[in-house]
């Protein structure tokens, strides 16, 4: 019973807080650029607006177009249950590990690419082709990095990350690689630009261009949740935490505060990167992600050498 309530709590937490994180990053970016920026709550307003609006579906689309938003949001929520938030272990850790998380994300992306092709518009096809191009480069880099973490912790279960080994070279390099992967995966600036609707530069936005109303809201919410999951995972690796007693109020307070602080730190780092770096040409992404791949290799080697 406690377990089920925990699962529901975690789902509600992700749905409720993930847009806030996106709003916070946007606000930080704007402030770094010496602008006032929109409210932190803007993503919520967007979602409410979109849910209230009607939906336009092209007559030429098939069932794939209709089920894709549901698949995307459910894959994001399923992945959210594989991340430790309130307690050290993940709510669904008996069903999968880090690799499962990667492939659950891939499922959502696969359907999104199919749906973009389904509408038959030129933008959709271009967007899904680019998305697949990027993800084919991201995946090997991500897998290598994850392997280095597995080697270090001796398990593929995400909840073992808490086991507080002192920060090693391999975990530092792995965390840098994961950070860069997360930038590519959450379609942030050196690789993609979330703010643009310019046809030459958009990748993720091009795929969801045909969606409107509630379906678009679901896809956006899924993107927010995905970003939150990535940040929590990186936080888990960069700033590992000693096992604290969660039943005492002090331990709970410490755990919550530390969790919030490290996610905020990563959000700050992301917004700094976004402000200070220019977007790359699409084919420069190969260099960027190739570098991440090499970082993954180095991290694995360090893990094998145990340094």
């Amino acid at each position, binding site marked *: 019973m406690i377990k089920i309530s925990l699962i529901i709590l975690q789902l509600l937490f992700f749905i409720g807080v993930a847009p806030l994180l996106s709003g916070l990053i946007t606000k930080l970016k704007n402030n770094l650029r010496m602008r006032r920026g929109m409210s932190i709550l803007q993503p919520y307003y967007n979602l409410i607006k979109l849910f209230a609006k009607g939906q336009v579906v092209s007559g030429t689309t098939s069932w794939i177009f209709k089920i894709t938003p549901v698949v995307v949001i459910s894959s994001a929520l399923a992945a959210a249950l594989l991340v430790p938030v309130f307690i050290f272990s993940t709510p669904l850790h008996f069903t999968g590990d880090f690799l499962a998380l990667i492939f659950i994300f891939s499922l959502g992306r696969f359907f999104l690419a199919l749906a973009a092709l389904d509408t038959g518009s030129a933008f959709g096809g271009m967007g899904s082709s680019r998305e697949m191009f990027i993800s084919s480069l991201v995946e090997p880099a991500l897998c290598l990095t994850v392997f280095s973490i597995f080697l270090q912790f001796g398990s593929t279960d995400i909840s073992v990350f808490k086991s507080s080994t002192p920060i090693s070279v391999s975990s530092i390099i792995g965390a840098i690689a994961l950070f860069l992967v997360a930038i590519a995966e959450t379609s942030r600036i050196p690789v993609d630009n979330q703010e643009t609707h310019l046809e030459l530069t958009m990748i993720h936005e091009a795929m969801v261009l045909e969606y409107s109303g509630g379906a678009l809201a679901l896809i956006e919410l899924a993107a927010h949740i995905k970003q939150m999951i990535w940040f929590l995972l990186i936080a888990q690796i960069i700033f590992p935490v000693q096992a604290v007693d969660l039943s005492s109020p002090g331990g709970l307070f410490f755990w919550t505060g530390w969790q919030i602080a490290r996610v905020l730190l990563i959000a700050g780092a992301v917004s700094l990167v976004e402000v200070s770096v220019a977007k790359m040409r699409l084919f420069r992404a190969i260099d960027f992600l*190739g570098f991440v791949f090499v970082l993954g290799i*180095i991290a694995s080697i360090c893990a094998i050498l145990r340094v």
Partner: protein
Amino acid sequence: MQFTILFAVLISTYLMVIAKRMPALIRAFRYQSFCLFLATFLMAIKQSEPDLYAVAALLFILKVIFIPQLLYRTVKKIKAKEDLGLFINPQLSLLWALGFTYLSWEFSTNFISQGNEVKAVMLTIAFFVVLAGIFLMVSRMTALAQIIGLLAMENGIFLLAAAVTGGMPFFVEIAIFFDVLVSVLIMGFFVYRINKFFTHIDVNKLSRLRG
């Protein structure tokens, strides 16, 4: 801590290899030198030798501040900002660099330091930095990029000396620094002259005499 700095050197060398523009290359060189400075400084603290402090300070002043600034200024002066004259594109260079890393790992584990893993890692990274410097000199066609390749090689040799002997004698170190400084000054001037005569610094095209 020592390992962190060593691997930071490794990563900054990879950054040099994938750099596509001159400022990026200079910045990566600056990172590399800074990591080297940190390593020397750490060694100085550990051994508490005043000589090493002086070497670290010189390293910082010359290679982190002065030489990159000089190179930036040269780049600005000759207005050849974008091009590195890539002979091998960044992705392929990265693969080459990985191959070099493997090669130097094999070399240092099998031939030099059998059984001693810490020393093997140090030697691997030092050899790799030297090899990457040579690679940069061979595969980049502009004179400025080749200068940076030479400087990277020099950094690698510094690291190698530190790995093998724990630092060269103070006066040798000073002499090398002076050498590097003078050579960079002369080469910077050369690049400027080449650019003035030929209106480019592409070494590949310097096969024709011009009065």
